[in-house]
């Protein structure tokens, strides 16, 4: 069995875990980052993409609002290339309590959230599809973020500093020697190969799964209540500004424009199992009705895809007898030396994506003490690889790149403007045959046709690289086809159904993939809706 030795082992490759590992690498520690699946495939990759201004919490949770605006300013700087600085509106619709708007503006003042009231007519000029009956509009510095790009930028930075990033490596055991956690045993998802990682400190950054991981370390009472929320992606940007209802936070009150689409979210339903991705029809209906309130005609627009994510809502079952280090109400850092008398093990959970950097900083500051040589945090000033120029992503970026290279830049995915060289480079860099991994890097197949045209092309290109067998290529094709269908079928209606039927003709009619020698086993078709 292979063994690795490191200063810090981070379990969980979401934004928080990658942030912790990035923070550790910048402080000069050796670090290993592991995830049971791909990076940011869990909660981080399953949200709407909003970087909060803090406005959402200005009345309900002023501390969270202060944290958000503080981090909002930092992240726009350090992850500039992953951010589209679209701005945000809080709008008072006829369904919202008009009195809330004054509380909102006061809350923003009290929490340092930049907020300017603008004319509703001006807002409608900027967002023509917005409900014309909005009475008040406030402009705030919301933005959107490409989480996969952010997390992989950090991963590249970690690797450049000698750290190791191991996606698709599940933790199967956490090693303990008396009161000391000494590392973990990993198992590779594809290979089944096991690796023992010996670590001076192990960080449990597994979010909604943090209780499961703490259990493996023999630590009791780390209870994370997964809060399930659904999101629906529309096939284009109905709005170009993040639009929030100006009311106490509730379900279905945000539409976020991100890349080529916009996403409406979300709900908050308690679930027992963080791997429960059931989509309920009643939630879909409610979300579409909520969309109508912000953008009349929402139901006639084209809904492309639905998915769910689970928030990690932390509840400390031991809070009464041990002081937890609740840094804020938003996230929870558990130092198990203090809490449980177990050395070398720290849990970070709760929180929200906007504050992932702060969570990572707090975590590594605690870890640094354990390592005995307190080193300062530099994540607030050090740009992520790719963001050094400090320029934000803009919507026309891919198109302008394409226009400059019409003669030799072959597009593989027209919806998301993914060129062939990008695909080839990503396949080589990730050394993967899983097109869904490539999707997270490049947004391949994430546009209106949901892979109708690019899946065959990408498979053909994949097959041409590095001696992939036809069996492997076919498997990749069928797997990606099934992955795309997973988020499509529970919300398939209207023009997206037309699109799906065209895709059926391509895959089942023209290509006849159903009769490939390696058809996908039915058991692999994951049930995601009721």
């Amino acid at each position: 069995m292979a063994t690795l030795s490191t200063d810090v082992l981070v379990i969980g490759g979401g934004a928080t875990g990658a942030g912790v590992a990035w923070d550790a690498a910048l402080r000069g520690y050796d670090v290993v980052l592991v995830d049971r699946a791909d990076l940011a495939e869990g909660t981080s990759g399953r949200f709407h993409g909003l970087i909060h201004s803090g406005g959402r919490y200005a009345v309900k949770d002023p501390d969270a609002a202060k944290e958000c605006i503080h981090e909002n300013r930092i992240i726009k700087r350090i992850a500039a290339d992953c951010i589209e600085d679209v701005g945000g509106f809080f709008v008072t619709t006829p369904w919202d309590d008009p009195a809330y708007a004054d509380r909102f503006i006061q809350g923003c003042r009290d929490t340092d959230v930049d907020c300017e009231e603008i004319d509703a007519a001006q807002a409608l000029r900027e967002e023509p599809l917005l409900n014309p009956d909005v009475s008040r509009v406030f402009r705030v510095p919301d933005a959107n973020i490409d989480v996969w790009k952010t997390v992989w930028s950090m991963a590249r930075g970690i690797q450049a500093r000698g750290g190791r990033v191991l996606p698709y490596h599940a933790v199967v055991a956490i090693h303990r020697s008396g009161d000391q956690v000494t590392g973990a045993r990993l198992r590779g998802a594809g290979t089944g190969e096991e690796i023992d990682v010996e670590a001076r400190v192990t960080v449990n950054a597994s979010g909604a799964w943090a209780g499961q991981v703490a259990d493996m370390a023999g630590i009791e009472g780390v209870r994370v209540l997964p809060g399930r929320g659904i999101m629906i992606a529309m096939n284009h940007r109905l709005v170009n500004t993040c639009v929030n209802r100006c009311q106490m936070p509730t379900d279905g009150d945000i539409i976020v424009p991100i890349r080529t689409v916009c996403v409406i979210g979300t709900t908050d339903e308690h679930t027992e199992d963080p791997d429960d991705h059931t989509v309920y029809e009643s939630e879909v209906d409610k979300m579409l009705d909520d969309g109508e309130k912000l953008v009349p005609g929402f139901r006639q627009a084209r809904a492309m895809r639905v998915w769910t994510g689970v928030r990690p809502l932390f509840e400390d079952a031991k809070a009464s007898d041990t002081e937890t280090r609740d840094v804020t109400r938003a996230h929870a850092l558990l130092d198990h030396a203090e809490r449980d008398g177990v050395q070398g093990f720290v849990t970070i959970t709760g929180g929200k994506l906007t504050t992932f950097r702060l969570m990572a900083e707090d975590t590594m500051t605690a870890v640094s003490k354990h390592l005995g040589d307190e080193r300062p945090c530099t994540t607030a000033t050090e740009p992520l690889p790719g963001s050094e120029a400090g320029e934000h992503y803009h919507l026309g970026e891919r198109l302008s790149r394409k226009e400059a290279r019409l003669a030799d830049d072959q597009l593989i995915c027209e919806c998301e403007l993914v060129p062939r060289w990008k695909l080839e480079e990503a396949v080589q860099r990730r050394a993967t045959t899983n097109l869904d991994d490539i999707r997270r890097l490049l947004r391949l197949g994430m546009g209106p046709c949901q892979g109708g045209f690019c899946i065959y092309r990408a498979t053909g290109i994949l097959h041409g690289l590095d001696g992939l067998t036809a069996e492997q290529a076919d498997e990749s094709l069928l797997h990606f086809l099934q992955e795309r269908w997973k988020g499509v079928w529970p919300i398939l209606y209207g023009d997206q159904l037309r699109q799906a039927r065209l895709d059926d003709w391509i895959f089942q009619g023209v290509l006849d993939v159903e009769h490939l020698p390696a058809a996908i086993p039915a058991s692999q078709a994951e049930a995601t809706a009721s």
Partner: protein
Amino acid sequence: MRGELHYDAVVIGAGTAGLVAGARLAEGGARVCVLAKGVGSTHLAPATIDVLGYAPERVTSPSAAVEELVAARPDHPYARLGFDAIAEAVRWFSERVAAGPLPEYRYVGDVERNILLPTAVGVLRPSALVPETMAAGDAASRERVCIVGTRSLRDFHPALCAANLRRAGVDARSVDIEIDVDRADQNSLGLARRFDDPAWRAAFAGRLALKLQAHESVGLPAMLGLRDPHGAWSDVQHRLGRAVFEIPTLPPSVPGMRLYEILRSTLRRAGGRFVLGAEVVSCDRDGSRVVSVATRSAGHDAHYAAPWFVLASGGFGSGAIELDSRWATHDRILGLPLRGAPEPGAPRFVSDYLAEQPMARVGVAVDGELRAEGAENVMVAGAALPGAVPWREGSGEGIALASGSHAAQLVLARSGAPAGAAA
């Protein structure tokens, strides 16, 4: 009504079913007008004539398998049409291709035996009738094949095609050939226009000949010319000294465009009128009859009145049938009742992409003569019919040809046009 146009029959839809119905009505002496929002599924499909490919196992002989399908699925369009009607429509089609606007271009094959042609991913797919330009791909020929592609065409990957063909027992290899293009995003239509140029294809064949081995036939993506595919295909075969066959790939479909041109020309030559860009937006009814339809086109709305209508507007794929966000299904053209949708609350789709989807068989409800329920002068044809899953069973063109022909013949018989004129 002012500005109302009168015909003996109005056909809605310009896919295979609508164009066949229109052409056969015109040939039967009816004054017919085909209205369509846009071109139909011809431009997306491989343009093979698939009568029955899978039931659900691969079908060797459509004639035998259709009988079994009809017994098992009385709601299938074939159950109402019968095998003889399919065979008659396929014969009519073959003759019209031969007499059509593309010089010497032919379809080959028959409804007794399916031909197995490679798809772009290298699956052997069954079809009854195929363009002559594809016929040499028949797996039964047991030839050694060389699949040829070019990096410039992102919609065809010869190595993957050949590798899967080998897995299916075909002795196949692949080569890539460089071609000069001015931009990287070529599709098969752009290349087909080049193949119409004799000098260009001669140069292509010259470069390809250097890469070929003895005793192998050549499979190319379906791009051997639009205006004169027989000429382009024969020329390339002659220059290479061996059999050459086309392999259908991603849309736009070059052989589908040829098929469209053949059917459109057959309609026009028989005296039928064809209005593209005319979306039917409403209809006038008188009790159980449709009296006229209104189209929206540039400048003004137009009204078309007729004693008979043929609804060949397609299913979900064309948008003629809609599933709305409250999960109700509608015929958006004439508002006719539908059949085949799952009960409210029952699953509409299932999580396994390749399984049959509960929503798959929805269509306009029809009686035993394929007349719309609740509209006695509306015949239904093609993908608008309920009961079939054409892209899975490989029955799309068989249904389109037979139901389009059937609609024309019934209308001609009922409206007293010269007997036998449609045959």
